[in-house]
């Protein structure tokens, strides 16, 4: 602690240089945190997916429907504890750019299947009693300024026409990865009001909860075998596998992030290493005098490293804090990344990255300073 004034004074020796170097750290760390946030956003479905849930879709494609009659047959299979279903509605609110997921859900089973979503009991009772009722995620309601009691008109793009809903509740999540941008309404309302020409008795997909002692892979197999060679063959897979397949469809985000992250770190190393080398070069005389009056090689090594780490920490904290504040504002893409937040682990990783780069960048100049020969340096004065 007694040497802190010396470290601080050296950092403030050239304020503009220190601030600019710290700013380069801040910008790079902000970028890193954003990458972590985007990665988390892409992977949120995997994190949020229930470990005991199976997603059953049409074998041909996710957008092909399945018969509603499958529900009871699936429920009878060994290892199945509960079944619900839903439909993708695909409408827009007021403007085509106001896109968000709308699900026509089974009012009797959906809430029990997705217990991670918190809904007020009174709101759910109203949902059950009102055929036009809808429930929105908290983030979605905030996005459009909706309040309970509002009338929400949705323009159907698959199920054409204007559909009017009565917002009776707003759901919350139980963990940060839970998607709060969904809009639920009753499946019976959809099925009873299908536009002319739409086939009846079809739903989008089933969600199945397995019994505690059941084997998920076995239950998937049983479901697919049950409907094999039928007109509507199924593909049953774990919710996590489905979410991972969505991420995979978007390309190798991980590799892209690693590449960008590596470039950021390398650039930072060059910038900070150059700064610290310059700082040591211009202070050769001072370092020589410090050594002459009794400061050892290790102290000088520590002094230069402390300065490098100080800049790294300053920039790292600023960049990470700015990124945290930015992500607190929620999804900046208008619906593409519904769960947009910087995970705590990502923030900690960013700070460690900053310190690691600060250490690596300061090491060479610090070793150079530590090895400085006092007599030779003083002769050059």
């Amino acid at each position: 602690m007694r040497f802190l004034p010396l470290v601080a004074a050296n950092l403030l020796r050239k304020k503009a240089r220190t601030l600019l170097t710290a700013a380069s750290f801040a910008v790079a760390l902000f970028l890193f945190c954003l990458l972590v946030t985007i990665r988390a956003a892409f992977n949120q479905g995997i994190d949020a997916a229930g470990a005991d849930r199976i997603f059953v879709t049409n074998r041909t494609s996710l957008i092909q429907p399945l018969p509603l009659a499958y529900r009871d047959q699936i429920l009878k299979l060994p290892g199945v504890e509960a079944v619900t279903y839903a439909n993708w509605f695909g409408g827009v609110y007021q403007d085509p750019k106001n896109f968000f997921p709308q699900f026509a859900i089974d009012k009797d089973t959906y809430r029990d299947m997705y217990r991670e979503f918190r809904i007020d009991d009174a709101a759910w009772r109203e949902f059950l009693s009102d055929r036009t009722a809808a429930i929105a995620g908290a983030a979605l309601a905030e996005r459009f300024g909706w309040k309970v009691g509002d009338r929400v008109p949705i323009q159907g793009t698959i199920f054409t026409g204007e559909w009017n809903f009565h917002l009776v509740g707003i759901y919350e999540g139980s963990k940060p990865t839970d998607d709060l941008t969904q809009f639920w309404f009753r499946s019976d309302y959809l099925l009873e009001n299908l536009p002319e020409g739409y086939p009846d008795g079809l739903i989008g997909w089933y969600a199945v909860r397995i019994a505690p002692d059941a084997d998920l892979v076995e239950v998937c197999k049983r479901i697919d075998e049950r409907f094999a060679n039928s007109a509507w063959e199924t593909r049953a897979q774990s919710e996590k596998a489905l979410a991972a397949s969505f991420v995979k469809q978007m390309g190798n985000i991980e590799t892209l992030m690693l590449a960008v992250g590596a470039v950021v770190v390398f650039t930072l190393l060059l910038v900070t290493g150059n700064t610290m080398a310059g700082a040591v070069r211009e202070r050769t005389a001072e370092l020589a005098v410090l050594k002459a009056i009794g400061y050892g090689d290790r102290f000088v090594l520590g002094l230069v490293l402390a300065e490098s780490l100080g800049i790294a920490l300053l920039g790292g904290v600023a960049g990470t804090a700015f990124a945290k504040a930015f992500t607190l504002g929620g999804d900046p893409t208008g619906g593409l990344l519904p769960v947009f937040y910087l995970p705590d682990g990502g923030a900690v990783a960013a700070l460690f990255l900053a310190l690691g780069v600060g250490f690596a960048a300061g090491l060479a100049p610090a070793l150079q300073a530590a090895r400085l020969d006092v007599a030779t340096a003083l002769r050059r004065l």
Partner: protein
Amino acid sequence: MARVGSTARSEALICLRGVAKGYRRGSEDLHVLTDVNLDVERGEFVALMGPSGSGKSTLLNLIGGLDVPTAGTIRVAGDAITALSRARLTAWRARHVGFVFQMYNLIPVLSAFRNVELPLLLLPLSKADRRERVATALRVVGLADRLDHKPRELSGGQQQRVAIARAIVADPTFLLCDEPTGDLDRHSADEILEMLHHLVAEFGKTVLMVTHDPRAAARAQVTFHLDKGELS
């Protein structure tokens, strides 16, 4: 009284025997010092004179433990410093040597107080003790009212006085001054020489001073001359 010669004197504070220093520059061997024998007693003010390149600063560096001789032994207050490792030599310097340089070499971003405090940070002293010692050292050099001034806010003479305060604040065994008046005007130089004389006369400090200036050397009790690496 200090003297050159090879007869050992047990009471000498600084004792050099057969000290030589050489460098290799390319394929050429340079002999900067050859067979230097010197005794300096406690409380003496000794001047070293000689032309440029005669080895004055090299000799000062050897005595101050900043460099090691290629031959011979150096003993200071009984310690054979030529036998010490680099790390122990650093610790020894902190305890025994106060340096004053021609260009003052203060840390420009630190106040006079912080500059003088630097050697004390290496000692197990409380903050209050350090503050008291720094205040005393700055009072001795007549700068008690300049504690918070940065070096750039002080004249050359004042900066050198701060450097002297830094050199004496840890109460070292002796002071090594390398051209301490070389960058000062006559008036400031006289003040610095008077101060060094005062430290010897009043506080019993031992001072070795390298100088080109005969007037500066005249303030010392003993003057030795170095020429082509030989002390006389």
